C-alpha cells in the first residue's frame, strides 16, 4: 500500500551522503502555485523522497468562523479556494440549510448549478493555463485567460465582484441575476466548445507537451483511494466516482452528463479528463439555460434571509427582521452535518456543528488539495526532478485551501 508523506528530510539517507543531495523547492517558486515548500532528496536528477512543508498561508479561518454569525462565514469561504469561490459558498450554504431544514426555491437551485459550473470552468481554465506554462507552453495561458476574463465578467454582472463573489447565501442567492444574464451565458457557452478545441489543438498534438506528461506521475487506483485523492486526479486513475452523479446535491440529479474516466493514471490522463470535464460542464450549463424555472431566488424564511430593500423601506416587519438578522444573526438548531460536493479540484466537504446559537460551534472544511498533496511522493518517486513540476501542475493544488 502507498505511504503518505514520510518523515521530514534534514539530510540524505543513511549511507547515501556521498551520492544524494537535499534541496529546497519553494516556498517562492513559480511552479508551486502559491507558497508550497518541498524538501527533496535527489540522486543526481532522480527524486528519492519528497517532504511537503505547508502552512505558509494559514490564517485560522476555522477559528474565525466560530466568532462569526452563520451568514458572516459566507465571505470567509470565498477566500479559501479563491479560484473556485462558488463551490465553497455552495457547500457551506448546503450544510447550514441541511441543519435548518430550509427549502430552496427552484430558480435559486438552478442558478446555483449554473454558477457552480461556471466556477468549475474558471478553475479548470486557470489550471490549464498555468499547467501548460509550467511545462513551457506559454501561449496557452493567454488563450485560457481570455475565456476566464469572460467568466469573470459574467460573475461581475451577477454579483458585482469578480473573484470573491459570496453570491450563494444561506437560503438562496444574494441577488436576482440581471435581465440579460442568461443570454450572456448562452453567448459564452455557444462559443466555448470551439475554444476548448483551440486549447486542444495547441497542446494535444504538441510533442513536447506530450512527452512531458505521458507516463509521468503515475498513480494507481488503489493508491488514489488509500491516499484520499479525489476529483479529476482520482478519475484519471480509474476510480469512477463523482459526487454530482452518485450522491446528488442541489438538484444535480436532473441533469444529464458523463463522468470522464481514464485508467492511465498519469499526468496526460488528468489533462484529458479535465478537458472532457469542461465540455460536460458546458452541457450542464446548456440544460440549466434551457430549463431555468421562474420564481424567487430566496427562500421564504424572513428570519433567516435578508428582506428585499424595497420591503425594508415600506414594511415594519421586514425592517425588524433585517435589524435582527444583522445584529443578532439567526439561531440554528443543534446538530452536526457533513456536506460533500464535487468542486473543481475534487471533493470539498463542510462539517458544521451547531450548539443551537447564532454562531457556528465548529466549522471544518475538507479540501481536496490538502489530501492530494500527500500523494505527491508516490507520484514523483524515482522520476526526474523536472517531472515534479509537471505533477504539481497536473494535480492542480491551491495553497489557499491547503493552509486555510
Amino acid at each position, binding site marked *: *500500500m502507498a505511504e*503518505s508523506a514520510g*518523515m521530514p528530510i534534514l539530510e540524505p539517507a543513511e549511507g547515501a551522503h556521498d551520492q544524494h543531495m537535499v534541496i529546497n523547492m519553494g516556498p517562492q517558486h513559480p511552479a508551486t502555485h502559491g507558497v508550497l515548500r518541498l524538501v527533496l532528496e535527489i540522486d543526481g536528477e532522480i527524486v528519492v523522497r519528497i517532504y511537503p512543508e505547508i502552512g505558509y498561508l494559514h490564517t485560522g479561518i476555522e477559528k474565525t468562523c466560530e466568532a462569526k454569525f452563520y451568514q458572516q462565514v459566507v465571505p470567509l469561504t470565498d477566500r479559501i479556494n479563491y479560484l473556485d469561490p462558488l463551490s465553497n459558498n455552495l457547500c457551506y450554504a448546503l450544510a447550514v440549510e*441541511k441543519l435548518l431544514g430550509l*427549502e430552496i426555491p427552484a430558480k435559486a437551485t438552478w442558478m446555483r448549478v449554473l454558477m457552480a459550473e461556471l466556477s468549475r470552468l474558471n478553475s479548470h481554465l486557470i489550471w490549464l493555463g498555468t499547467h501548460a506554462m509550467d511545462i513551457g507552453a506559454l501561449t496557452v495561458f493567454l488563450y485560457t485567460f481570455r475565456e476566464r476574463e469572460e467568466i469573470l465578467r459574467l460573475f461581475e454582472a451577477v454579483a458585482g465582484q469578480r473573484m470573491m463573489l459570496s453570491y450563494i447565501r444561506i437560503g438562496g442567492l444574494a441577488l436576482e441575476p440581471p435581465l440579460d444574464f442568461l443570454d450572456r451565458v448562452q453567448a459564452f457557452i455557444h462559443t466555448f466548445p470551439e475554444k476548448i478545441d483551440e486549447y486542444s489543438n495547441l497542446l494535444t498534438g504538441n510533442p513536447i507537451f506530450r512527452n512531458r506528461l505521458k507516463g509521468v506521475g503515475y498513480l494507481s487506483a488503489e493508491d488514489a483511494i488509500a491516499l484520499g485523492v479525489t476529483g479529476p486526479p482520482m478519475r484519471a486513475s480509474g476510480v469512477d466516482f463523482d459526487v454530482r452523479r452518485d450522491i446528488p446535491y442541489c438538484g444535480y440529479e436532473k441533469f444529464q452528463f458523463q463522468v470522464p474516466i481514464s485508467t492511465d493514471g498519469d499526468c496526460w490522463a488528468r489533462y484529458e479528463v479535465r478537458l472532457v470535464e469542461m465540455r460536460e460542464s458546458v452541457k450542464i450549463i446548456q440544460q440549466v439555460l434551457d430549463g431555468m424555472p421562474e420564481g424567487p431566488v430566496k427562500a421564504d424564511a424572513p428570519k433567516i434571509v435578508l428582506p428585499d430593500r424595497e420591503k425594508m423601506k415600506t414594511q415594519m416587519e421586514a425592517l425588524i427582521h433585517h435589524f435582527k438578522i444583522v445584529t443578532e444573526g439567526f439561531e440554528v438548531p443543534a446538530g*452536526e452535518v457533513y456536506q*460533500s460536493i464535487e468542486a473543481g479540484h475534487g471533493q470539498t466537504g463542510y462539517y458544521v456543528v451547531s450548539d443551537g446559537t447564532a454562531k457556528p460551534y465548529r466549522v471544518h472544511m*475538507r479540501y481536496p488539495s490538502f489530501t492530494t*498533496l500527500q500523494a505527491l511522493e508516490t507520484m514523483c518517486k524515482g522520476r526526474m526532478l523536472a517531472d515534479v513540476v509537471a505533477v504539481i501542475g497536473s494535480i492542480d493544488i491551491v495553497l489557499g485551501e491547503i*493552509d486555510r
Partner: protein
Amino acid sequence: MAVAVKPTLADKAAVLAGLPEHPAVKAILAWNADALTDAKFDFNELTLTIAPEQIRAALATVQAAGYNFFEDMTAVDWFPSSPRFQLSYHILSHPFKEHIRLRVLLDEADPSVESIVSVWPAANFYEREVFDLFGIRFEGHPNLRRILLPDDWKGHPLRKDYPVEGYR
C-alpha cells in the same frame, strides 16, 4: 427540491431497531457490539460512537464492509463539558454511495487515540492537523508534528479556551 429527510433515530436502541440492515451497523455489530457505545441517525447521516481504544479496529471493520474511502477527520472541543473532545471520522463508500460518521469521545487529561494511518494513509495530514490545532495525540503516527503552525507555536488554537485573537 431537497432530498426527503428520513426521520431522526435518536439513540443506539432506535438505530439498531430502525436500521438493522445498514451495512456499517451490521459490520460493527458482527465485529464487536460492545465497542458501539452510541448511535444516531440525523439529517440522513448515520453517526456511530465508538469506544476510543477500538477506533482503529472499528475503521478497519467498516473499511472491509465497503466504506472504502477516508474523506475527512476532525475534532470538536466541547469545553467545559466532559468528555471534552470529540473526533469525527467521515467515511465515504463508493459502492453504497453514502457517508457515515464514526465518533470518538475523549477526556481532557492527556487526550490520545490510536492512529489510523495504517488503515488509510490519507489520514496522515488530518491527524497532524488535529494534533496541531487541538493537541490530541495519535499513538503510532509516523510523523506526529505540527503541520500548519510553526514548530515553536505555543498552544492549540482551535481549543475553545484559546482566544480568537490569540495571545499577545
